């Protein structure tokens, strides 16, 4: 019985010691794995890589999607009056400049306010708008 216990301890000790010795700083690091070597791991289907020159880059988000052939296109002239009204409403840009300018102005004012508050904070005088107002 005692021999079995000693043998078990010896096996456990060899298992625990092996990783630490294999990673000892005194030993030279093992060569990195060769990344160019083929991987034997099985995959579903067949691996495909684009031929040089056939790669596709990121899509331009402002380019309309291809709707297909001519038969897939609904010409404006074929639309009903109600459908034309919807399209006309979507294409109507009247007044958009004013809206865009308002957003731009609000962004400028917000930036100016943030800059001012940052300056006040640098001076250690935050909350100037309410400071000393009874």
């Amino acid at each position: 019985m005692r021999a079995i216990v000693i043998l078990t301890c010896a096996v456990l000790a060899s298992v625990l010691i092996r990783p630490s010795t294999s990673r000892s700083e005194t030993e030279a690091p093992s060569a990195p794995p060769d990344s160019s070597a083929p991987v034997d791991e099985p995959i579903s289907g067949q691996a495909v890589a684009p031929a040089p020159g056939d790669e596709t880059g990121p899509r331009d988000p402002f380019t309309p999607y291809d709707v297909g052939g001519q038969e897939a296109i609904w010409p404006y002239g074929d639309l009903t009056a109600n459908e034309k009204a919807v399209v006309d409403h979507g294409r109507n840009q009247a007044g958009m400049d004013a809206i865009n300018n308002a957003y731009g102005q609000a962004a400028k004012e917000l930036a100016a306010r943030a800059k001012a508050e940052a300056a006040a904070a640098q001076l250690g005088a935050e909350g100037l708008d309410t400071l000393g107002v009874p």
Partner: protein
Amino acid sequence: MSFKILTLAAVASCSSGPSVDRATIGSLDYSVPSGWNSRDLSTSQRTMVEWTPTDNEDAKESVTVIRTELPAIAKAGAGYVEALLGQAQASLPDGHFSAPAPFTTTHGFRGVRIEGAFVPPGQAQRYHRIHAVVISGSALLHVVYTARVADRESFEIVVDSFSNRGA
């Protein structure tokens, strides 16, 4: 409490100037109009005390004195403080302010002041504002005067009175 009123009694009764009380902030003494009440609004970052007259119904007047330890800004000098003080007023609603102007107090402290008016949040009437920043060693001292009916003398009493304690 980091500030202390040194003398509650008026000390200028025998002089030709206005009647004032003396108070202390940091290592400096300063004057406030006689009879004004103080309120300590200090935080861990800054020492702040707000002074208001007893009868403040119409004028809505106050002088807030703030001391902040800002070695880098103080070392940068009055020119840098001047630029920041001018920028900082842009945060005030409907504010119209003059250009900041440098000055030197009677006791030789350099500072920058700016003057204008704004409409505080939730208020309908314009308030007058004079904001001075005085450099004292590694600290900045703010004197912020706010009033619906302005009395410039109250501000001048405070801002021109800073002196080293005991001097």
